[in-house]
């Protein structure tokens, strides 16, 4: 793992022309921003879909003005059909998990900051990098196509279980071409992600600046690196799964569909396939995917928290090893999504134990964050608020995992709102909090301007309280047996709990509106934000040693040299209570 020796400066001229600069750019920073922009579009559309879903759940007969414009067939006269609810549900999940939670914390921020934080001038393979973004973009276009085709988007959920997703139009609306759009889109997404992961790994291993040993990399770089290792294996399995699904749908094969299936009064022309095979392949990807969603935010939050606390974490090494063990264990637990699926009941126990074991590194991380707060000099701003909120949300979402990890309790809680509450909090909201924190923290670096602090804090409070109001009740609803993926609640026992759903819907709409504050802040500050200096947070890692925004070649003519770990805070530096990572200032404690 050697670092390069000091090399002469680059020779390539800066990119010229609008297309080269902003569209088909090789610059990792532009590509990072492109991923961020795509994630923004995806998150707001995904959120919009969730509003429609929440409104429909509590007022199923309601006429939503304009909805018929989105789909004449799905919402005639503005009244949502049951199948359209499922279409929106499927697209919401797909957009959020893939195009938001994989793109924003990992591809967007990782692309932008990983090379800078290790002292490199760009990623190892800038052309592959550009290809990876545009492949991801193409994946998004194909997915959106599902909205405009006549039959509409698929109704099988983001998990697209077979045979429902494999037998074609006899399965229901949206399952003719909509599901094919999904399959092709996700296959493309896999290809884009594989290229991206490859880039991150090669860059981290080989392009580190002099003095930048692996252990001296910032924690967010570590998180991106570990995430790319996970992503490499996970997407490499989902891609074949999607290919086999597409073949079952269109080429008459029977990988996932057994014989004797009668749907829509038609005996399906398949035989011998295994629905469980799809589940195994999907969840072998799917579980590591949720760690792909959360690990980068863990790294980003650690990075920001250290800066806000003005002291390093109790042990960066422990954090790194914990993240590594989470990555490793993530490949051993996929069966916990399948406890009741009909697979061998013995294997349920085999999957349960590693699932419970993941609690250990997750607890270590939480305790290190908490323990590091002790005796700190915590600065409160929008970024650190979201970082602290992350810890709260991660714990809240994580402890419900204790329940679901046990097969016997899963008998009660599987496919109920308990699960939905669990993954929204621990993966959806927590991960997004990392993205928000990163945005407020790095916006000055990326644009040379501050985001508005007052609006940022307002955004935090609405989001923090709002998401608790939305998702905490989900757990209670799950306990009483509220089944998920229902477009309305016709069960006798659900009647007393409709008011809870109404409360959740109102909370969701208000919290959603709060995100518009963030969007406004983002756009307004980009143009009219208060100008920011090179190092507004008195931070120490390499991104704070270059201008805001950075030049196209990051470090200009120099090649940074690094002398110690990136978290020299709480020391007597010449500039204050910190020493930059590229400063040869000698300090009492080494790295």
């Amino acid at each position, binding site marked *: 793992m050697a670092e390069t020796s000091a090399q002469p400066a680059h020779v390539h001229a800066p990119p010229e022309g609008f297309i080269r600069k902003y569209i088909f750019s090789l610059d990792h920073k532009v590509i990072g921003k492109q991923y961020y922009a795509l994630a923004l579009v995806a998150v707001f559309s995904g959120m919009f879909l969730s509003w429609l879903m929440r409104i429909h759940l509590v007022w199923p007969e309601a006429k939503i003005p304009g909805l018929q414009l989105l789909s004449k067939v799905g919402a005639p006269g503005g009244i949502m059909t049951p199948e359209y609810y499922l279409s929106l549900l499927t697209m919401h999940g797909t957009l959020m998990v893939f195009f938001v939670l994989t793109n924003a914390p990992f591809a967007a921020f990782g692309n932008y900051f990983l090379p800078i934080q290790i002292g490199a001038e760009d990623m190892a393979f800038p052309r592959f990098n550009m290809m990876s973004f545009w492949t991801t973009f193409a994946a998004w276009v194909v997915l959106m196509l599902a909205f405009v085709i006549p039959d509409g988007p698929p109704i099988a959920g983001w998990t697209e279980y077979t*045979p429902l997703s494999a037998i074609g139009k006899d399965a229901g609306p949206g399952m003719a071409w909509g599901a094919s759009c999904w399959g092709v889109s996700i296959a493309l997404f896999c290809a884009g992600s594989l290229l991206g992961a490859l880039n991150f790994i090669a860059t981290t291993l080989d392009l580190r600046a002099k003095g930048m040993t692996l252990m001296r990399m910032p924690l967010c770089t570590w998180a991106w690196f570990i995430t790319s290792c996970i992503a490499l294996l996970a997407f490499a399995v989902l891609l074949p799964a999607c290919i086999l699904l597409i073949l079952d749908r269109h080429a008459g094969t029977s990988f996932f569909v057994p014989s004797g299936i009668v749907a829509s009064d038609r005996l399906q022309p398949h035989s011998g396939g295994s629905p469980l095979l799809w589940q195994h392949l999907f969840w072998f990807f799917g579980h590591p995917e949720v760690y792909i969603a959360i690990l980068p935010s863990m790294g980003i939050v650690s990075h920001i928290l250290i800066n806000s606390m003005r002291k390093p974490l109790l042990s960066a090494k422990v954090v790194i090893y914990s993240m590594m063990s989470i990555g490793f264990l993530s490949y051993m637990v996929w069966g916990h999504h399948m406890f009741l699926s009909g697979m061998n009941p013995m294997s349920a126990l085999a999957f349960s*134990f590693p699932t419970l074991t993941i609690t250990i590194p997750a607890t270590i991380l939480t305790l290190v964050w908490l323990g590091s707060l002790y*005796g700190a000099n915590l600065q409160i701003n929008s970024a650190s608020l979201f970082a602290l909120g992350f810890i709260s949300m991660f714990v809240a979402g994580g402890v419900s995992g204790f329940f679901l990890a046990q097969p016997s*309790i899963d*008998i009660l809680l599987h496919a109920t709102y308990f699960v939905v509450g669990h993954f929204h909090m621990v993966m959806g909201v927590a991960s997004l909090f990392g993205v928000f924190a990163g945005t407020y923290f790095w916006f000055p670096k990326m644009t040379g301007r501050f985001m508005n602090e007052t609006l940022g804090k307002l955004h935090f409070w609405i989001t923090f309280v709002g998401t608790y109001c939305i998702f905490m009740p989900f757990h209670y609803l799950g306990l009483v047996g509220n089944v998920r993926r229902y477009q309305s609640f016709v069960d006798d026992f659900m009647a007393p709990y409709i008011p809870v759903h109404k409360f959740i819907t109102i909370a969701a709409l208000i919290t959603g509106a709060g995100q518009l504050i963030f969007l406004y802040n983002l756009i307004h500050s980009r143009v009219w934000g208060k100008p920011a200096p090179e190092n507004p947070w008195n931070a120490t890692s390499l991104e704070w040693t270059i201008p805001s925004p950075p030049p196209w070649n990051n470090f200009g003519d120099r090649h940074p040299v690094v002398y110690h770990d990136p978290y020299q805070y709480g020391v007597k530096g010449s500039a204050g209570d910190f020493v930059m990572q590229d400063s040869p200032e000698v300090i009492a404690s080494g790295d």
Partner: protein
Amino acid sequence: MGGHRRGAMGKILAVVLVIIALASAYPILKNQYPLAEDISTHGHLIDEQLHDTMIEAGISFVGAQLVLAFFVWSFSGRKPGSALKNFPGGARVLVIFAFVIVGIEVLALGAFGQKAWANVYFTPARADSLQIQAQAEQFAFYFRYAGPDGKFGMIHPEKIDEGNQNYFGLDPENDVAARDDIVSGELVIPVNREIHLMLHGKDVGHSFYVRELRIQQDFVPGLDLSVHFTATKTGKYEIVCTQLCGLGHYNMKAYLNVMSQADFDAWLKQQSQ
């Protein structure tokens, strides 16, 4: 970069965290969302397991939020130049705590939780259990009883005819065993008798869930799956489908009707006619 008064926002966050922690715990402590009544023989094991887990999860959750709140309160908005301190014992103490305390607690949950799971899945159905076949299809459940001959007729998918109510694709003309099979839209069972429910999926994936029975099991087309259980109380209970199966998923339900043995025998006799 802080609140208007130094440290105000940090203190507010601390207070909000405490409120959130307590507000979240309150409905659980007050049992405002009770589990459905348990009418099964094995359910109490699950319920106990849930209860134990709730205590551990609750302590972890509330504890962590309170610690976070306390530290944010104490260590934000400090006077400039305040000394930094390190958590006594550093990371090592916390790692040991995580491994030993949390590790043991959580793995104990897993180890003790085996009992309930084993009870449902590791014991075979008793030889004298009543065999009933359940079929899940878009969007209904049907149940088949073997009838007086005690044998189930073969299923012929190509003979399935919803219009003529031949849901299972039976061939009574050629198949003797199928002639006396009883098909019902309701799962009628006698109380206190073990039921061996065989699950057959007709089209896509479905799932069988009765909250009061503490039973949930997927139907997998192509796989012969089954569950066994004993109901201990008469009454009507809802069966819901919990695996997304298409547009009618939300409305796919049936009823479990637990009767006394005498009533059940009478019902069965009536169906045979």
